[in-house]
């Protein structure tokens, strides 16, 4: 530890640049991870609320919940078969609205699930609507970016109905739109009005069940239905949301490439530094420094470099998150930070093992004679 610390203090410049490069690389990894998480949540957080449930969609919808339309006959038969207490329909309607007395249009999606579902959503402001109310709704707080606030009224253009916002929720967005939760009475009213305007009755997008995918598949197999249905996990439904896979896969690719680059840079860094110091290690061995001491010393040095540079990058990430405009989807969970940090540690440890192997096989004599 003594040697490695002395060396860092003596070669401040070299170690500074090394730490800077590692810090910038990991900062980029954190930043893009935050962006990927943010986009994912912006796209799918309302569906993620049902992540422990199994979805039954119309087969022709091609796994896309926005295309799925189950008739009330299909819904009733499915619920009879799977048990009404274990299932509930999920209705959603993507529409355009505007704040009453304002022209600016806002995209939003109405969700209507089981009667108790809106209470599973966390309110950050306001209150839960009255169950019998036909005007009160809660909506995702992202609607505030469009200038709509608690207590404002918004008019749905499809049905012509007007709703009043009594509560704001968090992490409830669907396809980058705020989700408004309607109760049964409101949905009933909406579907009647909307159906008048669009000539076809509003249908349920999905039936959700607490059964596993396997169980639901077995139970629905051979069930006489007028429509073909498909049983999917919540994860599959999320992957098939419009744009979700495209966004995530490109960002995931960037992150993987960054890790790959880090592997090479860290590996080459530590390797070259070790090779450069061959004669020095040879000398230290000759005057009686054990290989274990040198290996420990190298390991300690790497850890110091890593801890400092990852610390800097976390600080940069934190500052970035503060500075980013609120419209930018950016979300980093502790779990994500943890796994990324662990990945960096693993990568460095692997590259340091290569260097330690170098030290072990250094032949004291030839290293001293510069051969």
């Amino acid at each position: 530890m003594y040697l490695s610390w002395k060396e860092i203090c003596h070669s401040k410049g070299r170690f500074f640049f090394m730490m800077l490069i590692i810090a910038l690389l990991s900062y980029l990894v954190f930043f893009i991870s935050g962006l990927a998480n943010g986009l994912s949540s912006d796209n799918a957080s309302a569906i993620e609320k049902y992540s422990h449930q199994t979805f039954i969609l119309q087969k022709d919808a091609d796994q896309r919940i926005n295309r799925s339309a189950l008739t009330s006959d299909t819904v009733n038969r499915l619920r009879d078969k799977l048990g009404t207490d274990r299932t509930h329909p999920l209705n959603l309607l993507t529409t355009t609205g505007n704040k009453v007395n304002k022209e600016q249009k806002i995209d939003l999606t109405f969700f209507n699930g089981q009667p108790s579902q809106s209470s599973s959503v966390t309110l950050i402001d306001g209150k839960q609507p009255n169950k019998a109310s036909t005007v009160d709704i809660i909506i995702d707080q992202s609607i505030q970016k469009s200038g709509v606030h608690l207590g404002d009224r918004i008019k749905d253009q499809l049905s012509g109905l007007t709703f009043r916002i009594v509560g704001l929720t968090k992490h409830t967005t669907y396809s980058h739109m705020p989700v408004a939760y309607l109760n049964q009475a409101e949905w009933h009213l909406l579907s009647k009005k909307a159906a008048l305007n669009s000539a076809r009755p509003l249908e349920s997008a999905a039936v959700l069940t607490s059964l596993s995918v396997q169980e639901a598949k077995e139970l629905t197999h051979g069930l006489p239905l007028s429509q073909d249905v498909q049983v999917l996990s919540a994860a599959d439904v999320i992957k098939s949301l419009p744009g979700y896979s495209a966004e995530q896969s490109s960002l995931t690719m960037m992150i993987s490439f960054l890790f790959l680059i880090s592997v090479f840079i860290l590996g080459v860094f530590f390797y070259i530094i070790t090779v450069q110091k061959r004669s020095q290690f040879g000398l230290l061995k000759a005057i009686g420094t054990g290989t274990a001491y040198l290996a420990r010393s190298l390991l300690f040095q790497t850890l110091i470099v890593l801890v400092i540079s990852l610390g800097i990058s976390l600080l940069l990430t934190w500052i970035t998150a503060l500075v980013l405009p609120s419209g930018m989807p950016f979300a980093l969970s502790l779990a994500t930070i943890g796994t990324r940090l662990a990945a960096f540690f693993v990568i460095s440890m692997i590259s340091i093992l290569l260097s330690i192997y170098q030290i072990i096989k250094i032949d004291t004599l030839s290293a001293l004679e510069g051969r």
Partner: protein
Amino acid sequence: MDNAILSFKDVAKSYPDGENTLDILQAIDFQLNKGEFIGLVGPSGAGKSTLLSLAGALLNPTQGEIYLDGISMASLSPKEQTALRLSKIGFIFQSAHLVPYLNVKEQLLFVAKLHGTAKGDANHHADELLDKLGLTHRSKHYPDKLSGGEQQRIAIARAMMNDPSLILADEPTASLDFSRATSVVEWLSHEVNEQGKGALMVTHDERMLRFCDRVIQLEDGKIRSIS
């Protein structure tokens, strides 16, 4: 025999060279006693450095036995050999080979630290050595700020730091001018004689031999004469 620090018993060292073997050293047999300073001379390629490496357990002999303080060195594991070098052998190389990021005093304290010497003792001993070698005013400098002669004297001080019984020097005066070289070798010989250590010094400089108690002449891997 009790007096011996280092003894070579019919030692040979050879390397495979294609289908043949290359004999570097053959039938080396001598003994280094306490307080004795032996000079090792011979043309280049005679095997002087190999002999020194064998004496320092950096190499193992192909044949024969080498005893340091009565211990057969070839029978030790590499780890034990490293520990032996740390505590019993002081190395002085042709070039100083100092650790670039330790200052003069830290170079000395580091080997004491490896050896497990108490900090106060090590500090005291280091100051003493630096004083003897006239380097006290340089104790906070880093190697890149020192002249070649100063670096070499630090290397010598480092070799003496753990109070080894055997000092092995490979052309220690090659980078020093004559008067510096003389004073360093004189000091070394004085230390060896006074403290009952043993020293083996390879040198090309005949003028240094007058400080040696005996001189071994090596030629073609064999001892030609011991005088």
